[in-house]
Structure formats: structure tokens, C-alpha cells
């Protein structure tokens, strides 16, 4: 039997401050936000755990990559999110990035139904540099990430080209997050 870990110690305040961090991250693509300490079922990082505790509930079908299957019990206990196949998920949680084209992109009538990919990366703030431009950025910004696949920029081009449909991403590492909304251009 695996050890079940606690969720937020102070659920109201912590989920609100984490929600604020996600909002700020989405509003300023590529800007790194801190979400604070959080116990997380290994190998999930603290920031990933906090984001899931904040955003998921029994109305959010979720897909866990095989790396995170051990977090399934923890997720079911704290969030009650149903686990579904990848193509139907509102939230996808992974460490090896799945091809963006395999996630649900929403439709032109309801682009808000698109999936959000919560991707745990090796490091934020160091590593490969990506040049971001688009809504929320007065001037192009640079985001350093270690752990994205080599064809990431090509995949993102295809994802961005489908706007207003497309996948949003939240990158997590340690206690940090950064977001890549589908509206941002990456070079």
C-alpha cells in the first residue's frame, strides 16, 4: 500500500494563491511564478501537485502519463478527478511531453474546452532558450527550459496556427511554474 500524502494544509488560502500564480503565469507567458512548498506524490513536483490540487475537481476529466500513475490514488482522494484516455482529457499531466496533436484542442464553437497540458520539466529558468511573443508581452520575452523535446518548436507552431483552438501548457519544475497559452508565438 502506498503512503497517501496530505493535500493543501490550509486549503482556502493556498488554493487561492496558487490560482493567482496560474492566472499571472497565463497573463505573462513565460514569466516564472513561485507556488510555494507542497507535499507531492513522487515523482510529481511540488508545483505540479499544487496546480492539480487547485484546478482539478470531479468535473475535470484527467489523463495521467504512465510516470504519474502512482499519483492516481492521491489525485482521486484530494480532487476526485476521473481518469480518462488522453484524447478526452481536460487536463493532461506528463513528464515526457505527449504529441500536442493527440490532445483535445477544443472546437471553434467552444475553444474553452481545449485540454491544458501540465508538463513537468527538468528545470525552468535554465537550459534551452525560447523566444516568446504575442498577447501579454509588450516586447518579446525569453524563457529558458530544460527538458522540452527537440521538435517542440515545430509542434508549437502547428498548435499556435490552429488558434483559437489549441492546447495551453503549464510548465512545472520544483516550486516554479510558467505558462504557454496557445496565443503565444515561440521561436
Amino acid at each position: 500500500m502506498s503512503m497517501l500524502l496530505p493535500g493543501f494544509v490550509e486549503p482556502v488560502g493556498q488554493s487561492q494563491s496558487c490560482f493567482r500564480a496560474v492566472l499571472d503565469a497565463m497573463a505573462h507567458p513565460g514569466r516564472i511564478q513561485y507556488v510555494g512548498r507542497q507535499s507531492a506524490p513522487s515523482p510529481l513536483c511540488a508545483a505540479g501537485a499544487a496546480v492539480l490540487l487547485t484546478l482539478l475537481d470531479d468535473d475535470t476529466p484527467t489523463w495521467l502519463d504512465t510516470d504519474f500513475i502512482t499519483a492516481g490514488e492521491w489525485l482521486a482522494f484530494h480532487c476526485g478527478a476521473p481518469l480518462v484516455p488522453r484524447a478526452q482529457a481536460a487536463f493532461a499531466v506528463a513528464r515526457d511531453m505527449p504529441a500536442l496533436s493527440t490532445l483535445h484542442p477544443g472546437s471553434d464553437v467552444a475553444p474553452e474546452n481545449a485540454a491544458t497540458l501540465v508538463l513537468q520539466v527538468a528545470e525552468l529558468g535554465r537550459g534551452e532558450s525560447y523566444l516568446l511573443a504575442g498577447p501579454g508581452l509588450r516586447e518579446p520575452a525569453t524563457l529558458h527550459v530544460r527538458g522540452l523535446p527537440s521538435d517542440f518548436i515545430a509542434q508549437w507552431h502547428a498548435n499556435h496556427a490552429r488558434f483559437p483552438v489549441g492546447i495551453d501548457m503549464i510548465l512545472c519544475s520544483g516550486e516554479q511554474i510558467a505558462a504557454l497559452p496557445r496565443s503565444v508565438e515561440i521561436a
Partner: protein
Amino acid sequence: MQADDVANSEDRKRWMSILARAPLAELQHLLQDGPALPEATRLRGPECGLVMVRGRMGGGGDAFNLGEMAVTRCSVRLADGTVGHAYVKGRDLAQAELAAQVDAALQNAQMRPRLMCQVIDKLAAAQAAIRAGNAARAAATQVQFFTMATMRS
């Protein structure tokens, strides 16, 4: 008995329902004697919330919302990974946490016999006595209704 068997057993349903009805003072009083409960980590709560109680008129009526009631829940984990849950009526956080600790301890084969006889059986007897008293008071004022159809036959 394996741990998973205990967690899903009829016995556990029974002790959880008895713990859900046990007032804090009574529970504390019964736990005074004997060794302390094992250390427990809070997994969730204790936290209060509202649940909607639904009712139904007769056997075939439509369900309707009778009203909301306050419920407090708590889940704790022991050092060995055993998880105890409790849902209790009202807003007493300490009551929910203590009930969850007792539920966790009861899943341990070493602690179960003593706790069953020291706590659960006594609580069950007290609750049965209250129920019997209420039933007796209600029975004394019971009126039998006969429908016309019954009287004709």
C-alpha cells in the same frame, strides 16, 4: 484478515456508523483508559461543509430536498499508511478528527479487539438504548389507520 479486507468489511461499516453518531465527550471519556491512540497525520480536514438531505413521501413519491445539514469530515493516516475517515453531524472539528483516528486504529489487528470492547460496543449499547427509548415513546402514541378498502375485505 488482510488490511484491504478490513478496510472494506461490514465490521468497518458498523463501527464507522457508530463513530459518526458518538458525541465528542463520550468518545473522549471512553478513550481515557488504556494506551493512547497511535500518532496520526492529517490528510484532509477536519473541515465543515453542508450536505443536502433528500426525502421522499411514501414509497413512490418524488424525491425532494428536505434541507441542508452541517457535516464535518476528516481523514488521517497512521505511520504504517493506514487511512482513517470520519464524517460526523455538526461542526465539531475535534469530534471528526478523533473519530477518524479511532477508525484508523480499529483497522489494526492488534488494537481492534481492545477498542471494539472498550469503545465501540459501549457506544453501540448507549445508542441502542436511546433508539429503544425513542421508539417506546413513539409507540405509546401510535394510531392505526385503516383504509376503507382494508375494512371492506
